[in-house]
């Protein structure tokens, strides 16, 4: 019973994450759909921007998910998993840094 009470914030987090993911998918899908349609009819700067925006939102969604998890674990004082989640965030940040370097120097 005690176990369940302490789990409640994490259950709420799980639901919050579910909503976050749904918003991310809907937003990026919409950007993709409009961007793709525009691209096929009148390809140009607008369609390119929409498509890239869709991709960025798509990639940002799991990122946001990890950040929300970090915040929640820290808030609940669950240091073991806060650390694990922070480690994941570090790897993701590393990917972004490497990608930026490639884009900058490429």
């Amino acid at each position, binding site marked *: 019973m005690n*176990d369940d009470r302490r789990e409640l914030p*994490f*259950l709420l*987090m*799980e*639901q919050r*994450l*579910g*909503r976050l*993911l*749904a918003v*991310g*998918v809907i937003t*990026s*899908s919409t950007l*993709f*759909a409009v*961007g*793709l349609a525009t*691209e*096929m009819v009148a390809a140009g700067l607008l369609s*390119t921007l929409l*498509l*890239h925006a*869709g*991709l960025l939102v*798509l*990639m940002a*969604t*799991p*990122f946001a*998910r*990890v950040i929300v*998890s970090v915040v929640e674990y820290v808030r609940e004082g669950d240091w*073991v*998993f806060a650390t*694990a*989640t922070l*480690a*994941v965030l570090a*790897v*993701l940040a*590393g*990917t*972004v840094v*490497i*990608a*930026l370097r*490639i*884009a900058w120097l*490429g």
Partner: protein
Amino acid sequence: MTDWIVLSVVAMGAVAGALGSTLGLGGGVFLVPFLRQALGLPAAVASGISLTTVIATSSVVSARTAGRQLINMRLGMLLQVVTSAGGLAGGLAAQAFSDRTLDLHFSAVAAVVAVVMLSRLERRNVICDLSVAPGRLGGRYHEQESGGDVVYRLKRLPLALAVALVAGSISGLLGIGGGILIVPALNAWCGVPLRAAAATSAFMIGVTAVSAAPVYYAEGKILLPLAAAAVLGVVAGSHVGLRFGDRARAKWLKLLMAMVLLTVSILTLVRTR
């Protein structure tokens, strides 16, 4: 890039998404060979596009299963440390490897996946005595079939971590989800019930894909119109799969897809000569 090509990618994405959510894997393992062999795209481009669909599949499925405590968030996050590290490494390697090398890797992985699909190991793994504590990495959820709560405990964490590392690396290297390796391992060797393993894996693969995708993006390997088409197809397809999927857990579908993958594996191998 003709409209027909774009539409064919949407269609294939839908097929991959439907198959993926029905069989409990990301559709990448079907999408990559289509992009590579049928459309003739370079291997890294095929992987890059597929990686974006993995993110989409993960987000869709996780949004659907969230809130039921089926997703083992703690286990997922812990394994994620190594899968994302592997994913980044795989993603970087993919930029350096030749098409032929990537094709050979894909052929091998496709064959392994086919064999895994053909094997019948499924462990129930639930403990019905609810007074047993799940421990930090186990879980408790409501099981629909038995109508009650069930508990499970994680076994052999080091093994789970090892599999997660391999799956993450393959994911980053080839653009597939990696779930097809994680789910059987968690279920067969680590004491996780199939549903929980599938939900946790679906939750994880999105983050793994994001550990590699930015690198592909920066290298210009994600062809936007096609990636958008693929994602839209996969999102639509996986919704269809989620709705009708449970019934179609038919053994014959798994068998058929395993055969398809074996064919793909051989085809890919032959074409590298």
